[in-house]
């Protein structure tokens, strides 16, 4: 039962140990920064190791680098400390490592309560890493909850604008989602027996969760999980916390929020709703599709109306995360489901993480120098900030799906997959790309080009340190755009087993295959 590889445990807990060192260490800015950078960099290296050493051969086992230990073994609750990655989570671990170091590098200019700031940032990193690697539902929930307080503190202390309001809104929304998930977990404990909380045994059972009777039906559990993840993703109409939180959060927190924390929602949908509820995800795919399309279109239209750069990027996230839902809904195909749409959804998680992370970094740089994020007050920024200008161009084009950049790959996969299941709704969703072209190009035109207003005459471009995270993300956007199979192959290997379970279950249900 017990086995211990150690790599994932190190990846998850290294940032928390760093936070502890900062907490107990001297109240010295340089010290805090030094520890934060070295921890985030080492964690990035560990994440690269996880992704690089992940065995991609056909004979490899599905879940790798397992750390397994009995955690709680009471009669009521049996839970294991179970960390592991499969093809779905390995790239997301890489993404978290990448954005972690970028967020720390983007925070070096912070002068307010430096010590506390890095403690919260590093705790956040542990929490997200833990979510992506836990294969036990209770452990997953534990890491999911740990993120609350750090994010709340980051928004309310280092944020801007109505930060108290936004922070509390974020907290209440998220904790309400957690409450739904907690009820679902109680349902699992009650109905699923001893292995209820072990994701591996459910994912490898070949038919998802055990059937239940009575009020706690699998459909109820499915929707409870869905609500928790939909709030995080966010899905219309549960998205209203996101623009506020993003707008008022400090730059690095926005990067983490958009880059990896929204991905926790998408990851949860793929891992739990798709992986553990093969029957329900198929029958409710049309609901997911509808909500996804509404998110895409509604998010796009609202984005067009934004004049605050950060709010604009935030609302565009609503639109882009809608695409994740559209990709997941591809499993609603009435005949043989293939993995394309799910891979697209997973790819969208990764590419949106880098693209939006990059956009938030650039917006943060502009705001730091120009002290405004209002598009009408900006203009000609690219003249003074060429590096930031180029970065926004690349991220913007990636965001609207220009071929050759990573956004294109994920969007095309999503649409290919979803078209098989819901052709008409997919066509409507494609309009979202048109809207994206509209708001991105319009934003670039108004903010980056044109004449430079007088009050922006002394703008300063990104310096060396600030350019490093920009460069890291640009590289990842271009590399994935040109050579997508570096990711898609891995995602496929993780999602293929889930799809075959779905196909298997639907064959049994339609009577084509005996039980």
């Amino acid at each position, binding site marked *: 039962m017990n086995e211990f590889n150690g790599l994932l445990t190190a990846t998850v807990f290294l940032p928390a140990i760093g936070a502890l060192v900062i*907490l107990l260490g001297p109240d010295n800015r340089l010290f805090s920064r030094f520890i934060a950078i070295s921890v985030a960099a080492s964690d990035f290296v560990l994440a690269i190791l996880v992704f690089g050493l992940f065995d991609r051969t056909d004979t490899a086992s599905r879940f790798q680098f397992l750390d397994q230990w*009995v*955690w*709680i*073994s*009471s*009669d*009521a*609750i049996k839970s294991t400390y179970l960390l592991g990655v499969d093809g779905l989570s390995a790239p997301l671990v890489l993404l978290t490592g990448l954005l972690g170091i970028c967020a720390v590098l983007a925070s070096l200019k912070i002068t*307010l*309560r430096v010590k*506390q700031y890095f403690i919260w940032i590093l705790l956040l990193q542990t929490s997200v890493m833990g979510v992506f690697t836990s294969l036990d539902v*209770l452990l997953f*929930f*534990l*890491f999911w*909850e*740990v993120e*609350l*307080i750090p994010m*709340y*503190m980051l928004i*309310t*202390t280092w944020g801007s604008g109505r930060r*108290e309001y936004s*922070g*509390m809104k974020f*907290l*209440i929304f998220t*904790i*309400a989602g*957690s*409450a739904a998930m*907690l*009820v679902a*977990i*109680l*349902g699992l*404990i*009650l109905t699923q027996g001893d292995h209820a909380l072990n994701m591996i045994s459910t994912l490898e059972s070949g038919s998802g969760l055990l059937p239940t009777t009575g*009020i*706690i039906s699998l459909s109820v559990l499915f929707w409870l999980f869905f609500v928790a993840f939909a709030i995080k993703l966010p899905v219309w109409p549960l998205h209203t916390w996101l623009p506020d939180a993003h707008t008022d959060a400090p730059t690095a927190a926005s990067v983490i929020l958009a880059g990896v924390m929204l991905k926790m929602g998408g990851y949860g949908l793929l891992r739990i709703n798709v992986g553990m509820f093969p029957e329900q995800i198929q029958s409710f795919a049309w609901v997911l599709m509808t909500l996804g399309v509404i998110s895409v279109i509604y998010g796009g239209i609202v984005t067009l109306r934004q004049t605050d750069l950060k709010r604009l990027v935030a609302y565009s996230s609503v639109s882009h995360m809608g695409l994740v839902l559209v990709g997941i809904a591809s499993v609603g195909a009435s005949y043989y489901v293939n993995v394309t749409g799910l891979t697209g959804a997973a790819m969208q998680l990764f590419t949106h993480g880098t693209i939006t992370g990059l956009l938030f970094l650039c917006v943060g740089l502009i705001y730091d120098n120009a002290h405004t994020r209002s598009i009408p007050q900006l203009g000609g920024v690219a003249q003074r900030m060429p590096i930031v200008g180029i970065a926004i161009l690349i991220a913007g084009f990636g965001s609207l799906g220009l071929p050759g950049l990573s956004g294109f790959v994920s969007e095309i996969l999503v649409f290919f997959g979803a078209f098989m299941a819901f052709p008409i709704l997919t066509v409507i969703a494609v309009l979202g790309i048109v809207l994206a072209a509209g708001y991105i190009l319009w934003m670039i035109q108004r903010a980056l080009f044109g004449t430079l207003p007088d009050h922006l005459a002394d703008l300063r471009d990104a310096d060396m340190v600030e350019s490093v995270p920009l460069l890291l993300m640009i590289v990842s956007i271009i590399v994935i755009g040109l050579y997508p199979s570096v990711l898609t192959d891995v995602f496929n290997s993780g999602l293929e087993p889930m799809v075959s379970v779905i196909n298997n279950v639907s064959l049994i249900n339609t009577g084509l295959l005996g039980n």
Partner: protein
Amino acid sequence: MNFNDIYLLSPQISIAALAILTILADLVIARKKAVLLIALIGLIIPLVFALSLVSSLHVSQDVALVGPSSILYSSFSLSLFSLYFNFLVLGALAIVILGSSDYLRDSGVPTGEYLGLLLLSASGMMLLVSAENLVTIYIALELTTLPLAALSAFSLNGKSTESGIKFLIVSALSSAVMLYGMAFIYGLSGSITLGGISEGLASASLDTMAYQQYGILLGVILLLVGFGFKLSAVPFHMWVPDVYEGSPTPVVAFLSVASKSVAFALVLRFFYVGLGDVDLNWAVLFALISALSMTVGNLLAISQTNIKRLFGYSTIAHAGYILAGVAAISYVGDSYIGMSSVLFYLVAYAAANLTALLAISQIGELLGSDDIDSYAGLYKKTPFLTVALVISLIALIGVPPTGIFIAKIYVFTAAVDSGLMWLAIIGVINSVVSAYYYVRVIRVMFRGDDRLKETDNIKTGIFVKLSIVVSAAITVWLGIMPSWMLETAELAAVSLVGLVN
């Protein structure tokens, strides 16, 4: 009576002796700190006795078969269940005594009397958890309560006196109601021991006379009212915020943790052992009280501006969560999940609440105020206490990695397991509501002017620091590695269930 009976009661006897010794020592020793050390080191004696009793109970491998040892002709009994609470009380007491050292130094409160009363109250609590008949239960309960009422009035100001008198009157009232209920139960069962009551009521329910059934029902309800006051459950909660606000904060810490725990122990034993066979669905009553306590406690806490009043309402809400576990027991008679979830929750809550209230006590000395608004910028003034308070507040919300996170999942699992899904959902929603006011306190502490100089001008003594560190460490430990405590709680629960079968 023989020597073995004295051995089985040795923890209780030794702590009562320690109380007297402490008061006597105060007469001859001038240094307050020395008296405190005597009380503290003296606690090792009951601890050692309790440990040796555990090892003697563990002789048999199958704990479920180890029945209670009857003491003094069924006046008391000894089981792992009662020892579990002995350890809880002793632990809480040690932490509170450590945490009171600064309060005793600065406030001019007479040390010997303060410590003596605390120890006396603790001896009452330890007697209460093993009291086996109505007379000893009543005496132990009064021994628990009266010293606490005196301690509530210790601060020599109007508020404190008010809270002492309020506590005294409420206790007297609830005891009177409870006695009335006991009279009914005694009258209809013909026995004063819990085991005898159980048998008596079982035979009474055979001849189904209507008046007997109603008599039992009335007795149970009167008992429930009496216990409700001790548990600080709604609708018997009105005294809690006032007493919490006025009493010295270390006393509040002891009151909210130890007194509440043994009240739950009493409820578990009385309703599970004494009334276990009664065919009444009083579990519905517990479920209702639970839902009410959670909801009312949390909603009223939102608008509080005084941190101690806020904790008063928070303790009401937590009584509600724990009662969900109590209600879960009665639905499935032979299961002990509900029981052990209550036991685990009590320990997790004790650790978190002790951390919080001892920190609040120090902060109150530092700021001279218990207003939440005056906490602004606290992180700068006293980082140590701020971190401690943050940990305990996070724990009280039920956010991991803390003990109450596991405890809440455990309690709600037990509730769902016994068909109380609605109660679990109410509990989960209430946890969301509670996040609002707990987080607000955290937020206030980190608000404020950064140009403030670090003025750690309160000399938080090493004893107080130790007590806060220990209780905070237990809080986190129970969240990260709960297995040991869960197993212990299950053993204790089984030992009580084994007592019924």
